[in-house]
């Protein structure tokens, strides 16, 4: 009998989380859709009466995703657990190129939570959903004994439709493609970190929590068909982990330039103070886009024209060498491998 237990690091979004998914969940939930390991599942809807789940022409494809939110504190500069729960699932769906339409919301509430606090969060969810153009169409509420949950946990699931002709996934990136990032990194994770008990230093940090479906729709509208290859939102595990996932899925190498990575001064200062690397710190309103090289300038201009992409930059490219690995050129000109997040940088940040 194994004595191995679940550790907090299993939920970090880094290597242990990946091991848990691959060695336990995939072992039991093995199917071709899940095996894609994308932010959302893209499935074909079988026509009524069909006996098999096969690809069917002229039926819209559906993107489907779910995520749970256990963040502490519930309210933080730049957002709250409700806004995060809407944005997170909207973004997971948008990363497949789909247009998010409907969300579900499940609330696990600890006995004793103030009704006013709950209402504030629910109102924030409604406002965020309206802003993102999605509807919360089904839900569930459970209340557990004091101590069995920490104030409030929210699960959201979402459904969206993939426009005809759109095919975006990690394995479509090719050597030569350009990698763009839609803005500064580390804002969300460092905001939460500095808000947590014991780290009450004043700082102008604010979470970047935002719905990115508009940004993705603009990219799809602007770029020639097929030139937008892959999208990821670098949440838990940060940009480093997202790039590693992309390199693995694409079976190609990724090269990035340290000096090109936008990091807000306050985030950098907080990271220096705590010994953290912004490459591994969570974001909740950023995306990584891999595009065909000839579409890079247009993609950059499109991202920058959107309110959630004003600080977009080109951060690197996909290469043929070192498949599956991410190589960073340091500010001093040396080159080194950037691995996924190992262990845990921040507890419960999403």
């Amino acid at each position, binding site marked *: 009998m194994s004595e191995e237990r679940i550790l907090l690091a299993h939920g970090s979004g880094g290597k242990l989380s990946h091991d848990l998914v691959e060695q336990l969940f995939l072992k039991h939930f093995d199917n071709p859709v899940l095996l894609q390991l994308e932010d959302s599942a893209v499935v074909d809807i079988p026509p009524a009466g069909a006996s098999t789940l096969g690809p069917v022409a002229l039926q819209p494809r559906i993107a489907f995703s779910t995520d749970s939110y256990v963040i502490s504190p519930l309210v933080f500069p730049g957002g709250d657990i409700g806004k995060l729960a809407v944005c997170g699932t909207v973004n997971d769906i948008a990363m497949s190129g789909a247009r998010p339409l409907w969300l579900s919301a499940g609330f696990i509430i600890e006995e004793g939570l103030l009704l006013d606090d709950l209402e504030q969060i629910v109102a924030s969810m409604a406002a965020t959903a309206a802003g993102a153009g999605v509807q919360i169409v089904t839900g569930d509420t459970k209340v557990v004994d004091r101590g069995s949950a920490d104030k409030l946990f929210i699960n959201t699931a979402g459904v969206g439709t993939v426009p005809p002709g759109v095919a975006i996934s990690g394995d479509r990136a090719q050597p030569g493609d350009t990698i763009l990032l839609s803005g500064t990194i580390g804002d969300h994770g460092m905001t939460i970190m500095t808000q947590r008990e014991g780290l009450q230093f004043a700082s102008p940090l604010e979470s970047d929590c935002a719905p990115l479906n508009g940004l993705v729709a603009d990219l799809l509208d602007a770029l020639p068909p097929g030139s937008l290859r892959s999208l990821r939102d670098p949440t838990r595990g940060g940009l480093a982990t997202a790039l590693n996932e992309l390199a693995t899925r694409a079976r190609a190498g990724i090269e990035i330039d340290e000096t090109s990575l936008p990091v807000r001064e306050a985030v950098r200062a907080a990271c220096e103070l705590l010994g953290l690397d912004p490459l591994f710190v969570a974001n909740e309103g950023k995306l990584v886009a891999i595009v065909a090289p000839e579409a890079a300038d247009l993609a950059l201009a499109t991202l920058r024209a959107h309110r959630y992409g004003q600080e977009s930059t080109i951060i690197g490219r996909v290469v043929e060498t070192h498949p599956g690995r991410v190589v960073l050129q340091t500010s001093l*000109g040396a080159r080194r491998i950037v691995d996924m997040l190992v262990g845990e940088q921040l507890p419960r940040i999403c």
Partner: protein
Amino acid sequence: MKYVDEFRDPALARKLLSRIEGRSRRPIRLMEFCGGHTHAIMRYGLRSLLPPTVDLRSGPGCPVCVTANADLDRAIALSQVPDLILTTFGDMIRVPGSRESLQDAKAGGADVRLVYSTLDALQIARKNPARPVVFLGVGFETTAPTIAAAILQAQAEGLENFSVLSLHKLTPPATRAILDSGEIALDGIIGPGHVTTIIGADAWEFLPSEYGIPVAVAGFEPLDILRAVADLVDMIEDKEPAVSNSYARSVSQQGNPTAMEVMGRAFEGSPADWRGMGIVPASGLAIRSELEQFDADCLYDVDPGPTKEHRGCRCGDVLRGTVTPPECPLFAKACTPVRPIGPCMVSAEGACAAYYQFGQDVPS
């Protein structure tokens, strides 16, 4: 944080590198005492930028790493005391002891809490007056004063449920122990910047005067380290060993007398058990006997069980600089940051973690 950029300026780095290249003739081996230095060296890829004549070796400057298994087992046994809250800095929680880590103990029900400052530990003690709160005191001269201050604060407040398991260690005696062993020939030492901020650059005078080797006290930015290497190369080539202070924005000759005074009020010198070096005389800090009500070692009689070392793990050798991390047979195979076997793979200051995270060969 513009302040930091000045110490990461690529043009200045190139200048220092060409100064080093121009001066360095004979092959030399330098030891960076601090794990923080090892991390900066690897993170910025400095090893690959330095000329082949300069070999950098990581030293014992990772407090988590040098904590012996016997001490770690004691901390884990403490965490099993009913109602006890064990507070610790983050890295300690993942280090495997003889049988398990504090993280495993936590998952098994022990109340182990991460704190960022001893002030947080005091706060936990104030909020839980009915429960004993122990702070796991691991660190060098850098952290010892803050922990001393926490003990004195607890005394002033009459905070009776707070105590410290003091596993603090002192850096000059460890440096002596490495040099005295004669196991590794060193031509110079990159001195620990944060430690020396407390103890003062004068504390390293024994290196040139007794051992004839130069020391350059360095900060933790790439230019700080390159400047220290350049100073060391100059002193070695000129055969004029001395203490150079390339971290003058933080380090003075005398150090921080207030911090030293606070440390002296709470602690007294004691032998300490170092991973890889065993018991080194006068290299630790024990809580003074008049403060024994804050000394977890006196308060709790726990049985840590027999000490076991993991076969094959060469952390002890890595900490003495006799091997580099990739020379350990477990490195990046059985021992990775996900499933670390030795502490050097766990800690943010551990040499193995630095080599693993930043030092993997870049395929061309």
